[in-house]
């Protein structure tokens, strides 16, 4: 092999290795927060105000992102969207205990007040 090809070949190998690493997601949290469990809605409200309200509006009343109030969201669905993202919403804005707390808060405001 001509020496001139070396940068391309090594570069291509790095691209393949990066893609393989991305597919493996070796440090992705493997244990999602239990939907609603151990979540502190009061603490979640504070986190929501700092990290979610810029799109979903104060108290989840809607803004750039959809309103969450009285929408009857299930904790598992909220967890899934927080972890995976949806549309323009990036994945992983909150994680771990923060995620559990935010999920608890979102479920609390999304439960129809009837």
């Amino acid at each position, binding site marked *: 092999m001509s*020496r*001139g090809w*070396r*940068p*391309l070949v*090594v*570069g*291509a*190998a*790095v*691209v393949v290795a*990066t*893609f393989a*690493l*991305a*597919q*493996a*997601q*070796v*440090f*992705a*949290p*493997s*244990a999602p927060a239990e939907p609603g469990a151990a979540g502190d809605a009061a603490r979640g409200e504070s986190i929501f105000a*700092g*990290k979610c309200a*810029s*799109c979903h509006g104060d108290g989840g009343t809607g803004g*750039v992102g959809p309103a969450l109030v009285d929408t009857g969201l299930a904790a598992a669905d909220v967890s899934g969207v927080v972890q995976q*993202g*949806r*549309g*323009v919403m*990036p*994945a*992983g*804005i*909150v*994680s*771990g205990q923060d995620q559990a707390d935010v999920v608890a808060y979102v479920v609390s405001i999304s439960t129809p007040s009837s």
Partner: protein
Amino acid sequence: MLLADVSETYTDIVTSVFSSTIAAKAWFATAAAILALLQVTTAARIYGRLSFLPERGPAVATMHRWSGRVAFLCTLPVFFHCVTILGFQAPDARVAIHSLLGTFLYGVFVAKVLIVRDRSLPAWALPAAGLTLASMLVAIWLSSSLWYFTTVRFGF
């Protein structure tokens, strides 16, 4: 779980400075993109272009080398989060383009470093590789940090 602990520890460290890991990525990528533009500017000066800038010489070459090294360092936290935690995703065009460019970034970086050290290659190879690398960094910034700053929030 050990791997989950790594992710949690990383999140704790990052959020001790930034409001979220996403914000940290946006700012590290911004620093890398600015340094990439400095790379292009200093490289152009080394090649005798942009004659209105300070004269060519060791200072420009030193600035070029160090801006590259620091830019590379700035990309590492982003690489860690995007590649090892989030992985390759393509839910929409922006994220798909971002993932694709991110996957190729370090390959182009390694190729560029090898081209720097290979005197047998044509003269155009190095500026072509450098421009490709800088363009990719800026495109990655446009598809992530700029989107974050304009759509989610502008802040630390």
